[in-house]
């Protein structure tokens, strides 16, 4: 046993995986994940591919935007799922079919807005909540920040669950519409997928612009030495707040997409565990790399959906199994490649 532990430690400390240059591993990881994705999709056919890619688009928006906060700025937030939920619930409340809702017990007031009227509000509300929360959170750093962001995720969840006049609590909200341009409703899966991918592309573009700008370099500097950067006259809190709000707005967008795509949401989609999985994706993919987050999200979706096809795994265990696999992967990766698949930094 102690030999094993020793071997593992040696592997971990000086193993080939840790020393492998980033560029090489990035290439290998990219080929592996994309190959896996293509193979899987060929095997399962077009319908499945479309579903899988849509889920990927939504998770990728979450992962890339979270990496902005966690990877590029160094704020380990486990509360991202809260903003995702706020976006989803805003879409659900504003846009769900009012005539349908009136038929139900405990109906909630729904103004019956079209998707594109509600979407900016979803993003704005996620941003506004982030602004309020961020002003308070800005006092905290490091482990305390993790704890308070944890608290935020819990509070957000209990709002979704208990604010029944607005969210219908555990019953969830039905009949959330798809995006529509005039009379052209994107109710086909492929149309929605294209729309989701456009949103993802926009988010990636914005993140890329941010991290390659001088604003992004200040974030890197904050990540490295917050006090040193303050010496040069930067109001560090403003920078942190700005990136926090932007990231939350992107999560709000992802939430609105999810609500519209599934047409039904309930609080279970926004539990703390989902936030943990999200953090795992970001760390697995690599901190401070957009490409890594995209790969991480793809690998996660493949893993999650792929497990449905394991013949020996009863469907009711799929959920748990993916958590176990992801947990094990995370531990292994931290042991052998603490900077993540294609990341530049350790946590």
């Amino acid at each position: 046993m102690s030999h094993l532990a020793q071997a593992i430690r040696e592997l971990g400390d000086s193993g080939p995986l840790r020393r492998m240059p980033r560029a090489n591993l990035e290439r290998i990881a990219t080929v592996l994940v994309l190959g896996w994705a293509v193979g899987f999709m060929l095997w399962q056919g077009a319908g499945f591919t479309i579903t899988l890619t849509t889920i990927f688009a939504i998770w990728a928006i979450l992962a890339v935007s979270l990496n902005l906060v966690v990877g590029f700025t160094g704020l380990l937030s486990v509360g991202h799922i809260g903003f995702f939920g706020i976006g989803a619930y805003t879409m659900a409340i504003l846009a769900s079919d009012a005539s349908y809702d009136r038929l139900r017990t405990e109906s909630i007031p729904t103004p019956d807005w079209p998707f594109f009227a509600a979407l900016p509000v979803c993003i704005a509300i996620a941003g506004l909540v982030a602004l309020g929360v961020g002003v308070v959170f800005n006092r905290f750093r490091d482990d305390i920040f993790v704890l308070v962001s944890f608290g935020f995720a819990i509070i957000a969840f209990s709002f979704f669950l208990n604010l029944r006049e607005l969210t219908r609590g555990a019953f969830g909200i039905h009949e959330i519409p798809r995006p529509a341009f005039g009379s052209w409703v994107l109710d086909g899966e492929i149309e929605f997928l294209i729309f989701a991918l456009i949103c993802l592309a926009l988010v990636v573009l914005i993140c890329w612009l941010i991290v390659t700008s001088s604003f992004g370099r200040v974030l890197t500097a904050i990540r490295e030495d917050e006090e040193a950067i303050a010496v040069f006259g930067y109001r560090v809190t403003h920078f942190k707040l700005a990136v926090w709000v932007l990231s939350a707005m992107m999560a709000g967008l992802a939430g609105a997409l999810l609500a519209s795509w599934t047409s039904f949401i309930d609080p279970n989609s926004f539990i703390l565990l989902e936030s943990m999985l999200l953090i795992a994706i970001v760390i697995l993919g690599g901190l401070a790399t957009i490409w890594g987050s995209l790969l991480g999200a793809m690998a996660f979706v493949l893993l999650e959906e792929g497990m449905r096809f394991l013949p020996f795994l009863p469907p009711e265990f799929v959920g748990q199994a993916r958590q176990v696999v992801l947990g094990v992967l995370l531990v292994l990766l931290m042991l052998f490649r603490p900077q993540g698949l294609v990341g530049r930094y350790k946590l």
Partner: protein
Amino acid sequence: MHGSSDVSLQLTDIAVHYGAVRALDGVSLGISQGEAVAVLGPNGAGKSTVLKAIMGLAPVVAGEVHWRGRRLEAETHEIVREGICFVPQGRRVFTHLSIEENLEMGCLYLGDESEKRRRLESVLDLFPILYDKRRDLASQMSGGQQQMLAIGRGLMGAPDLLLLDEPTLGLAPIVVGEVFAKVREISNRVDTTIMIVEHNIKGVLEIVDRAYVLDKGRIVHEGTPESIRETNILTDVFLGRIQPDEEGGGRTDGA
């Protein structure tokens, strides 16, 4: 002593408390335009705290800072724009950024791109070694080069007053000489007022016009380098022979 009219920075009775720790206890000092002044003293004397108090980075509980005749009561970012830049102890360069990007951090608030480029060029001009490596990551530099980078980054703010906190700490003797030569060059060629905290007393006394000796949060001596070399004030302070708690105790004004 210098006339108060040309004093560019004046600290009056500054007290800084970190909880129960009295880091500074009624410190008054001044520095004139174009001067180079050293702040000396043993570990924990409060030297870094003096610089931080000027930059608005320390909890000042009493006293005033005047800059060019006006009371300086601003936040750090405003103080930087007023023309005071700080090179903190321990270099603290950003290892994940390139040399050029590190330098850029010194003046990012500038909207004017051409002014930025002009400053970058003048700093790279002053430090040829940084020019050669300007695209490399700061983590790939030696300690001495990182210190040059830290000073250069401070100069990117085009300061009228540059505050240097122990720029030679942990450097090999030959590199120490290079750093002091650069500081002297900045003081003379670029005509920047300099306040420098140093442990390397012999070296720093060669390049400054005046020095303050600080002990236990109080100024116990002020004078020219000669006056400090002549008296044994420094040995007294470093061996703990001075009791600053006695009113005016040990205060031996030189010059």
